């Protein structure tokens, strides 16, 4: 990849990236009751990180974000499959999800679901998959 030198894009990216990242996390958390969810959230985070790569160049971002995306895929799969096992421990079928309402300090009345860790697993897999594929193709200079 050629070294990009685009002032406008870089300045804008700095601004945009925060908004996109926080929106993507909102999408993940709000998914159960309004549009969003692990899949969409993961894709949006991936696109945010991709913008970073695009505007600052592969190598400089690689120094900042030192993540092995393949490992993150594994972690995601683990999240998704282990939440299913938890319900089996209590004698329910695999992947049975539960929910209840709790009163937490500061946040007030909150709905907590076991679907969230499951969705988090999906989020990780989607995020890391998109990044892993695109970066592998981009890095390949043959």
């Amino acid at each position, binding site marked *: *990849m*050629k070294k990009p030198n685009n002032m406008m894009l870089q300045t804008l990216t700095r601004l945009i990236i925060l908004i996109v990242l926080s929106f993507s996390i909102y*999408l993940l958390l709000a*998914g*159960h*009751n*309004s*549009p*969003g*969810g*692990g*899949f*969409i959230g993961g*894709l*949006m985070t*991936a*696109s945010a990180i*991709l*913008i970073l*790569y*695009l505007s600052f160049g592969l190598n400089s971002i690689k120094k900042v974000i030192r993540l092995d995306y*393949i490992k993150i*895929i*594994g972690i*995601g*799969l683990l999240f*998704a*499959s282990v939440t*299913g096992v938890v319900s089996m421990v209590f004698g329910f079928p*695999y*992947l049975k*999800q539960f*929910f*209840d309402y709790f009163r937490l300090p500061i946040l007030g009345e909150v*709905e907590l*679901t076991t*679907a969230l860790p*499951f*969705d988090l*697993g*999906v989020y990780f*897999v*989607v995020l*890391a*998959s*998109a990044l*892993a*594929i*695109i970066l*592998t*193709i*981009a890095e*390949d*200079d043959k």
Partner: protein
Amino acid sequence: MTLLHWAVLSPFIAAILIPFLYKYLKRIHTGWFVLILPLVLFIYFLSFIPRTSSGEAILNNLDWVPSLGINFNVYVDGLSLLFALLITGIGALVVLYSIYYLSKRKEKLNNFYVYLLMFMGAMLGVVLSDNLIVIYVFWEVTSIASSLLISYWYTREKSIYGAQKSMYITVFGGLSMLAGFSLLYVIAGTFSIRELIANADIVMASGLFIPAMILVLLGAFTKSAQFPFHIWLPDAMEAPTPVSAYLHSATMVKAGIYLVARLTGVFGGAPEWFWIITIAGLVTLTWGSISAVRQKDLKGILAFSTISQLGLIMSLLGTGSAAFYFQDGDNALYMTAILAAVFHLVNHATFKGSLFMAAGIVDHETGTRDIRKLGGLMTIMPITATISLIGLASMAGLPPFNGFLSKEMFLTGMLNVTEYGIFHLETFGFIIPIIAWIASVFTFLYCILMFSKTFMGKFDSSKLKVQHVHEAPIGMLISPIILAVLVVVFGLFPNLLAYSIIEPAMAAIAPGILSPGEFFDVHITHWHGFLAPELWMTIGVVVLGVILFMTFKKWENTAFYRGERDLFNYAYDYGYDGLVKGSQWLTRIQMTGRLRDYFIYMCTFIILIMAYTMYRYNLPAIQSLDLSPVPIYVWFVIAVFIGSVIVIPFINNRVALIIATSVSGFIVALLFVLFRAPDLALTQLLIETVSVILFMLVFYHLPKLKKVKTPPKLKAVKLIISIGFGLIITLGSLSAFSLGQEANYSSISEYYTENAKEEAGGYNIVNVILVDFRGLDTMLEVLVVALAVLTVVSLIRLRFKGSEDV
């Protein structure tokens, strides 16, 4: 889960711990830890003897998949106990032997013991399970463990070859056995062996009886190395010697015998069962003993001798199955064969185990197993020589060792066959004892050859790589000495085993022959009197064997003796090559490497299958389409959509192409918005964005778009396929829609709308479906995504550099 279940699973649990023990306690040989398990299990199984010998059987149930009739039911009777004792007893001795055989500094002990324990657990599972499917699962695990152990020294080409061969042959047999089990389920509606035996008359009367029997026997014959599937066993000798002693002579290869013995209650009494097993056994017996004479490798001789002895036991089980034909006949006449089979099974494990270990010692101390290089080791390795002498004498059928007793009994069993008077035995029956006798002559011959070539004659150290040849350390000798002592003890006092081990096993092989409370008469004697034909047959074997050995110089240089390789190997090699070449050819003609060709295949297939379905069920039968009115602006959006798609084939510039495809993608997102599907719209937008970024990133690497000259005919074909594909999808969805309206189906989405809040606590139906209602689908989809990523990454990062043929 009862203690018995844990006993079966304990080797697997131990196998998990081995790598840690190996890593953190490097100073102690890992084998010492492993040794504890088979010892404990052996003592535990010994405690069952009082119960099984009184005719009792223990059954512990554990549901696995009850809806499919698959349950992990552990069943202990005389036969399973005999095998469990063999597996754990010989297992303990082999582990002890391996501690001295495999150096803790040079060898990857963790791999070795993990595979060995895996095998032990699987083998216990095979012999202790009452359920055919559970047996099948464990059966395949033994095949895998065996393959892994054969390829233990995986840098040697021969090891890999042997491992592959054993895998192909035994897994082929395993799969056909699974088919046979399924047929049995179709016939009798159960996978439980006890229930099958109880319903044996239903099985017998079914038209599927013969196919089921042949398929099951394929499994048993491949595993027990019966002719012509025996070719994998000699190549399996590439495994370390403890493995050969354990898997490839004492236990795993007897799994087929176990299966035949176990299912005698189901199939026994049918002439086909009788003939197939008897003939296969006799042919194997003869072929194995003749081939063993030609071998020059100590382990090669032992391998073919194992094949031949397995054939012997198999043929006994075949002739003994006639007991089921005469439910109330003269038991002694038929049951002698079964008695001989069980007794010889025990004896073979003892003498063959000790022989393998002795061969391993010779290999370990001299560095070779080639009998042309060996000789004169008697004075150098006196203990090993004694052990071998006892083992070989027993195998050759000489008194007073245990092999003599079972060999005589084998001859009795074969002679009895001529008196059965069924299955046309009155005309052909006389051949059976003659074949048995000829095979015994060759057995005797290779036994003398093996001993004289290794231990007698002149010691020539110039042929050996090792400088100072000496006796093995005492630790290595313990196991073969124990086995050799057993050979002598069982030979002198055979009735030690008679009612504790052998009779219960016989009763388990032939259930229903005895009325409750009765026992088979098991009295093993050395002497049957001067007029007994067995005595004269044995004398004949010895005389002819000695004559052949004396004239060895004469036929030493014949082509028969020179060639070593079994002829059937050529069939395997040709078949294997053909398979590889055939599949390469098949791949090459359709895998062009061009995406557009694959699209043609896929679309054509979808068109054909949908067109056929429509034709077959008189579709499209669109009676009425009750559609809601389409607003004018939606028509406009769709027009843009169609326009963006139509221009794509005519664009020659890549940037323009990307933009055109993106337009169609974004318009789909827009349509989702119009139809109030925010989740889908969001997803579609993001996908489009991410793929545009991907294009930007790879843009730099892509080659220039070339104008490909397509012949007009092909162009027309492509056009037809494209139009046909669009047409068929449109027609399909329209008819589905119309059908739903006519039949007044309620849509599944209504269920979700109603229950999303109550059942799953979420308002977003799409998300609730994804994470809750159809959670397993999502789980597996995510898994597919992950696998796809791994594929892409490995394809790109690890791709071939040159023009390798894949």
